[in-house]
């Protein structure tokens, strides 16, 4: 249990070293080590600490946020196919971001607008699913799916009426792009704090995965717990899309892969999701900026291309 987390932690560090070393200028391991120790040439220091390190951290934070949000949503909806985007959160964020881009706003406003859009989507879905009576997981899921489809239509409409010179930036945002990240710290800090906060609740989540009634019979206050998960997962998703646009697949695939390997104990799955989601996005982003350098690919394409075959292989191999 601790061994698998330790292994994932080593993997995360290795992927970050890999991401720092690789790029338009390749840095040798010896030079990398010198910079880590606080030495090395000024060029290397600027390149690594000012350019590549923030981007790598942003990628790690975003990937971790999306994977943890996915793991939480799956328990909340008792549905292994749930992920933050299924509930229309990224759709709301995208509409917010595109609206700001359409009006020619700067990156700060775009980020803020994306965050506001995600939170609006959260409130909208939860309010509608609540309706007049109590909400059930399937009702929440259906509401989310339909609202997400609505956002999709609005996005298509906006793209259709946008002057063509503005389109590439918008499309990159929609496909997810870590180079948008202004600062890695919101993502990294929110990820670290939320994983620490959620750990005492992890065993409650294990019980909740058995159904709301069973959880209540075993002493879980179901409604407050479900609210906490929903708000937290929304916050994590909003922070992630604000940092790097809408990156698909991480939230769905990473927790699922980990469950296939490690079982379904949330005390392991949640921190493991943070580490593995971060690692996946760091690797994907490194590929995205090196495969056809100096051109860059949208990182969302890479996560899907890496994630889908891995996932299918694990699913095929599992019991």
């Amino acid at each position, binding site marked *: 249990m601790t061994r698998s987390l330790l292994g994932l932690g080593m993997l995360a560090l290795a992927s970050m070293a890999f991401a720092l070393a690789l790029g338009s200028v390749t840095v040798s391991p010896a030079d990398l080590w010198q910079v880590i120790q606080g030495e090395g040439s000024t060029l290397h220091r600027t390149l690594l600490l000012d350019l590549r390190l923030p981007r790598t951290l942003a990628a790690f934070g975003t990937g971790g946020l999306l994977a943890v949000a996915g793991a939480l949503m799956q328990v909340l909806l*008792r*549905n292994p196919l749930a992920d933050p985007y299924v509930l229309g959160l990224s759709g709301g964020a995208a509409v917010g971001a595109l609206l700001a881009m359409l009006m020619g706003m700067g990156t700060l406003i775009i980020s803020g607008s994306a965050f506001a859009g995600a939170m609006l989507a959260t409130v909208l879905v939860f309010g509608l699913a609540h309706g007049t009576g109590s909400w059930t997981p399937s009702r929440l899921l259906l509401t989310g799916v339909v609202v997400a489809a609505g956002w999709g239509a609005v996005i298509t409409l906006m793209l259709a009426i946008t002057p063509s010179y503005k389109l590439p930036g918008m499309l990159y945002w929609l496909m997810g792009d870590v180079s948008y990240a202004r600062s890695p710290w919101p993502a990294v800090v929110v990820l670290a704090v939320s994983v620490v906060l959620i*750990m*005492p*609740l992890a*065993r409650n989540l294990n019980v909740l995965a058995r159904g709301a009634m*069973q959880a209540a*019979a075993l002493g879980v206050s179901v409604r407050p717990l479900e609210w906490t998960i929903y708000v937290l997962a929304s916050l994590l998703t909003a922070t992630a899309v604000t940092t790097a646009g809408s990156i698909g697949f991480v939230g769905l695939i990473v927790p699922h892969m980990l469950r296939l390997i490690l079982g379904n104990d949330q005390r392991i799955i949640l921190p493991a999701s943070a580490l593995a989601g971060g690692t996946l996005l760091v690797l994907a982003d490194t590929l995205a900026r090196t495969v056809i350098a100096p051109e860059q690919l949208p990182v969302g394409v890479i996560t899907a291309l890496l994630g889908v075959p891995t996932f299918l292989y694990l699913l095929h191999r599992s019991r």
Partner: protein
Amino acid sequence: MSTLNTRDLIINVPGRPDGFALNMSIEPGQVWGVLGPNGAGKTTLLHTLAGLLPARSGQVQLNSAPLTALKRRVIARQLGLVFQERQDSFPATVLETALIGRHPWLSPWDSEQGEDQRRAEQALTTLDVDHLSDRLLNTLSGGERQRVAIATLMTQNPNIWLLDEPTNHLDLHHQVKVMNLMRDQAGAGKTVFLCLHDLNLAARWCSHVLLLYTNGDACWGPVANMLVPDALERLYDQRLITLQADGLTVFVPAP
């Protein structure tokens, strides 16, 4: 030891008149059997007694404190429930399933220790499912899953055991084994309350019986006073044949 009392309790079966208010005292050492036709409200009653459903009126008291005033966690240490239907959206092993019974006893930062593990293994052994402990729940038969659910309650080890048709899916041998377990647990000071469909199991293993009628009527009392053929025929709207065998009365539905 814990006692469960109902004070003028009317359970909330949608679209049914209030019927007869329940004033029962379910005490340690007793095994109660609830009998009634489909839709009479047996499961609703069980969930109301566990505080999972609100009553239409009246209250349920756990050791003379109203259930609604207690925290779920406090209730879960005193009272446990085996559901008739279980949902398993995520794969889990038999041992993991039994171990969640320890949840109400552990603080947020605790993980299951050797003692919890030992209790779970012992419960699985008692229910003859210990050889399945590493198997995934969704690969088991219905009867095996039923026994795992009872083992989970045994691992939880509350004073009050509520079980919704615990003999469902069980073969004859395990029906007897489970009913003996209920009697043994009551003998050790537990309070046991079961929904049943089998009159003969109730006749043989229950100390008290509650008859729940579709229209909301109810009557309860010691088993010897309750299992009268006339009352049972009215309960199920089904003619019964009674046989005497081995010093016991056996009920068989007439064709």
